[in-house]
């Protein structure tokens, strides 16, 4: 399978109740896919299924990605752990399957480079629970990218960001895509509008419509 994610006639949902039905899509490496839909339409369900977090109720979901990574919605991060920014980013290199983590020097270098690219270097030793929402969101992006994923799934990654910070994030994501990653980005922000080479996935009414690049609306960047 050359596609990193493939869904065939998939019904997706929770506890046996389908939120999305008849989902047919397949995406390979080096694609930037914008997932659009109203709140509660099933975007997160689709993303979680793509990562293998939700088994399909019916149909099939196949993944060939070697390393998956998730940028969750901002409120997913528990605020009671007094972890600092660098610790939180480096927690992204754990696994798979291993309890013990031995950090390599490259892991730390990569984490520091990401913090610099996201303009967080000055906050590397600050506690995450003492950052603003926008700063925390950038930390989550760095944590996802430090794994060097080939499947990057982002759930509203720019919801708390100002325009400049959103551009920084999207620049990093596009760099990862240029390096061969598949990025699935759920968003409703204009800053994340699909470019001419991007795929648009519309989630509405319990179904999913894929709009390929040639026909995709939205301004090119």
């Amino acid at each position, binding site marked *: 399978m050359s596609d990193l994610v493939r869904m065939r006639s998939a019904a997706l949902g929770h506890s046996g109740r389908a939120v999305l039905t008849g989902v047919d899509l397949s995406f390979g490496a080096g694609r930037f896919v914008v997932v659009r839909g109203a709140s509660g339409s099933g975007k997160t369900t689709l993303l*979680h299924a793509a*990562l293998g*977090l939700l088994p399909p109720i019916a149909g099939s979901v196949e993944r060939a990605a070697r390393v*998956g*990574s*998730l940028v*969750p919605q901002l409120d*997913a*991060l*528990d605020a*009671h*752990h*007094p*972890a*600092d920014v*660098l*610790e*939180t980013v*480096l*927690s*992204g290199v*754990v*696994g*798979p*399957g*291993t*309890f*013990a*983590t*031995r*950090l390599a020097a490259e892991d730390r270098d990569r984490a520091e480079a990401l913090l610099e690219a996201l303009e967080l270097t000055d*906050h590397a*030793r*600050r*506690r995450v629970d*003492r*950052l*603003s929402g926008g*700063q925390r969101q950038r930390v989550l992006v760095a*944590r*996802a990218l430090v*794994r060097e994923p080939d499947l990057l*799934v982002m759930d509203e990654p720019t919801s708390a960001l100002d325009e400049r910070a959103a551009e920084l994030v999207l620049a990093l994501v596009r760099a990862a895509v240029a390096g061969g990653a598949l990025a699935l980005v759920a968003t409703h922000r204009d800053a994340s509008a699909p470019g001419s080479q991007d795929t648009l996935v519309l989630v509405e009414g319990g179904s999913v419509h894929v709009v390929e690049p040639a026909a995709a609306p939205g301004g090119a960047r």
Partner: protein
Amino acid sequence: MSIYLELFGASLAALAALALVAPPVGAFLHARGTALHGLALPQAALAGIAVGALVDALGHGADGHHHHHGPSLASDLAWAGVGTLVGLAALGFRSRVGGSESGRAAGVFCLASAAAVLLPSFAPTGALQLDARARGEILAIGTTDLALVLVASAVVAVLLLRGWRSVLLVGQDPLAARVCGLSIARTNALLNGCVAAITVVGTATAGPLAIFGLLVVPPLGCHAGAPSMAAFLRRSVAVGALGAVLAVAMSFEADLPLGPCVIVGAAVAALLARLVWRAPERLSRSSPTR
């Protein structure tokens, strides 16, 4: 002091080991919002020991013996283990009992407290020993028992040193941890195993009050001022160790039971640590960036 050391050297070494490993385990409980487990589980372990004392007394009563010296430490460890496992199972019964995590922990503490007081009433031979355990009277333990405590402490220390980033990620963001390939159930089981190991050996050797003091107080005193998770863990260890030293001194000088002295010692150490570590932070604090 030398006689004291000769009699209780092994017990003090056990307390030292517990003072180094229990606080970071408690730090994870605190960070996860489950600090009440640090009260409920040692109390459940004590209730287990009470059950053991009852079983032991009933056994000897049936045999017609009237002068035995109560259960051995090995027996206490086994029964503390049973009590702890029952406590852990009760804490995990979310689907059947419902309610909040803290509510279930409070319930376990309530029931275990009742059991720990009521059961010895039916086993007078074990009642004095259990009372001493509950108060945290320092007990003389053998080298084999000490070896068990040291091995348990060493295993917990190695697990925490090697796996703390995984435990952190699972606690901070379980969904992202699953995406990274971590098993949430296995990671939580490892943390619970660490809590159980500390609880069992600690309650059977130093008593539940000392374990309350080491699992709960140092993290409570260090959480707000810790600049990072690693610092939180390190500071909890330092406060726990200092608290244990203060507790032994207090217990020896004033002839007080060790258990409550550990709580008081840890509280004093936590206050001192707060003063020492917060002062530079206050001096250099800049306005928060938003």
